[in-house]
């Protein structure tokens, strides 16, 4: 009793305890909690009618997805001693004893050349405390699943679990585009590639002996704009993701760079230096009608549309050093957004329009991925390394992909917007750079 009292005395300041017994209702309030990932367990799926090694392990892919999101703390497979494959087989006390809040169980059954898959997401805590009356959070069934669809199916399951438990759309079924640079006997090869969000299943979209830069997905996910330097002339191109067809959109003297799509898929913003200093232009993709958006002598580059499509944030040296500005599309009025440090570039706004992700050079000269809260101006550094660049937001606004360098090799990293989770995407030989996250797949 005494221990508890002293404990209360010690911890009391953490708790806002407002107790009143004047009325019948006694009230107490707590603020905050423990910052931790959601403890989840993924039980290896049961397999009927086939060898366990014959298909991709769905629970393994889901586990990796959820862990990479930074929102989950998944139980190690070795720690699992019970192997239910259906909600009816679950002993909730066992899982609660392991500190698990949610549980995923499932079965794979081979029928002919395809598989049928069942899985359920179960709320361990409330199931145990509120009883059997509760139904599973998710219970899904899939038929005619081909072995090559297993990864996509697992990502889809991850998306469903993520959205159910985190309340935000999952990004596991999205794709990423990036540029890989490989050295060969015929010199350097630059390849625009598209892969799953976890880096698996890379597919080349465009190859060139010249540098390739700045891939940008159209909001409908059907096209990718990028910069190439065929015959040593910069140009902006548009590639059809499915057909692989590439068309050159602009090839003005000087810079043709930094393309970015408007939310309605109709307009590209880009950078041209045909009239002097690099400036932001918009071009109608259909009519190719060009319109200059910014003026002045300094460098304006790296445009990015605001989520509402009514303004563009960009990098400008108009103040002497590169900083982030915003220009309204209707009034062309320009305002400065970044104020901390003397190098802020490559801006993008989060889907809620509240935060600005950027490349920031700190006092030590290191280039870091940083996020600035717009209404407070507070700047938070997410990664710190000398060679980070190309920050690119996930469509749900929770992760930032970026290019980095490890041992002189270009690699792709991802960091959660709160800075808690940093992961490295699997890379193959050569340098991988300039990641671009696709929109949600419909």
């Amino acid at each position: 009793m005494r221990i508890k009292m002293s404990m209360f005395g010690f911890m009391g300041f953490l708790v806002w305890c407002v107790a009143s017994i004047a009325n019948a209702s006694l009230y107490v309030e707590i603020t905050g909690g423990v910052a931790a990932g959601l403890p989840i367990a993924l039980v290896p799926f049961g397999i009927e009618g086939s060898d366990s090694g014959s298909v991709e392990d769905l629970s393994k892919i889901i586990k990796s997805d959820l862990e990479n999101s930074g929102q989950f703390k998944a139980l190690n497979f070795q720690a699992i001693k019970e192997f239910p494959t259906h909600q009816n087989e679950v002993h909730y006390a066992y899982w609660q004893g392991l500190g698990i809040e949610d549980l995923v169980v499932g079965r794979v059954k081979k029928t002919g050349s395809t598989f049928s898959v069942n899985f359920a997401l179960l709320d361990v805590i409330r199931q145990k405390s509120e009883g059997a009356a509760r139904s599973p959070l998710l219970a899904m069934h899939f038929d005619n699943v081909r072995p090559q669809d297993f990864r996509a199916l697992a990502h889809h399951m991850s998306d469903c679990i993520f959205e159910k438990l985190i309340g935000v759309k999952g990004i596991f079924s999205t794709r990423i585009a990036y540029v890989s640079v490989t050295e060969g006997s015929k010199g350097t090869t630059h390849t625009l590639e598209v892969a799953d969000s976890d880096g698996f299943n890379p597919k080349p979209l465009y190859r060139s002996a010249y540098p390739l830069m700045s891939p940008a997905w159209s909001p409908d996910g059907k096209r990718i704009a990028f910069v190439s330097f065929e015959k040593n002339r910069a140009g902006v191109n548009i590639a059809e993701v499915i057909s692989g067809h590439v068309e050159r959109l602009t090839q003005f003297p000087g810079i043709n760079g930094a393309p970015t799509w408007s939310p309605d898929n109709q307009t590209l913003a880009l950078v041209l230096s045909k009239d002097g200093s690099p400036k932001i232009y918009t071009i109608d993709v259909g009519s190719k009608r060009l319109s200059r958006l910014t003026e002045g002598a300094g460098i304006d580059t790296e445009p990015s549309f605001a989520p509402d499509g009514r303004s563009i944030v960009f990098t400008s040296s108009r103040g002497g050093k590169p900083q982030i500005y915003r220009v309204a599309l209707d009034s062309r009025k320009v305002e400065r957004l970044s104020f901390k440090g003397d190098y802020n570039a490559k801006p993008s706004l989060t889907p809620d329009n509240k935060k600005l992700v950027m490349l920031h050079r700190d006092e030590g000269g290191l280039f870091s991925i940083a996020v600035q809260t717009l209404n407070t101006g507070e700047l938070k550094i997410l990664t710190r390394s000398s060679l980070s660049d190309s920050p690119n937001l996930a469509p749900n606004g929770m992760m930032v992909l970026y290019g980095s360098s490890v041992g002189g090799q270009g690699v792709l990293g991802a960091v959660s917007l709160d800075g808690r989770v940093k992961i490295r995407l699997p890379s193959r030989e050569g340098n991988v750079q300039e990641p671009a996250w696709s929109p949600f797949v419909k």
Partner: protein
Amino acid sequence: MKRWALHNGLAQWLTPTHYTPYFLASVLMHVFLLVFFIFSLETSYNNNQLPAKPGEIVQASIVDQTKVDEEVTRIKIAEKQQSEEQAIREKQLTQKLEQVKHAREQEQVKLDQLKKDMAAAKQQEQERLAEIKIFKEKEQKQLEDLKQEKEIEKKKLAALDDQRQAEQDRAKVMRQEREKEEKKKNEAKRKSMEAKQLAAAKAAKDAAILAERAAVESQGRITGEVQKVLGIWAEKIKSNKREAFGLATDLYCKLAINVLPDGNVKVRLLQSSGNAIYDDLSIKAVYKSEPFELPEDPLVREQIKSFELGLRNDEGAE
């Protein structure tokens, strides 16, 4: 009494009246002895002066040798005669002194015996007095005891009367209640009246006990206990509340919590935060904190068995 009044000083010493004659005799004897002793001392003193006289005589005359010799012889004889007389006289005196001494010693023995007798008598008297005193005290105490007994008896009798009266009253009340009950029963037919009354009586009894306790206990102490227990519970819930990453800020939800006797809880969402995820993790935080340790004091337990919990997420949640 009149006689002792004349000798006030003595009377102070001599409280026992029948010892006075001995004492008087003793005093008189002492006076006599004293006078005798002083007189005898005076006599012996005069005799002691005698040896100085011959010297005066020698200095008187020296004339002729023969005469002188005669005279010397005569003197010598005389002297011899004188010294013999002296010796006799001395012997007589010594004898007398011896006699006096002996008498005095006898007297002293008598006196000592007298003193002893007196002390013994005194001692006897004191003992007797003490005995009398103890006896009197005993008597007094017995008297008092008797008195008390009588009073107790009286009280007992009175109590018995009261009891009888109370019994009579109770009997009366009971009779009345029984009558009432019978009336009620008649009014309400034969329903589950008994059970209801029993429950009501129990509740009333509980309420009465609690009311009594509440009256006795200080309200401040209970409030303090309740706050303390709530604080411990709130800390436990907080430690089980997982702050989800990337949630909107300034979320707040309110839960109604009923703590069951086994320490488990029933949770009801009173006010949603507008974010289902936040509501859910708040509810889970409470369930994860089971069991809640109930305080022993029934009054505190009564107060705390249901309460409302507000959960707010951290500002900035990062």
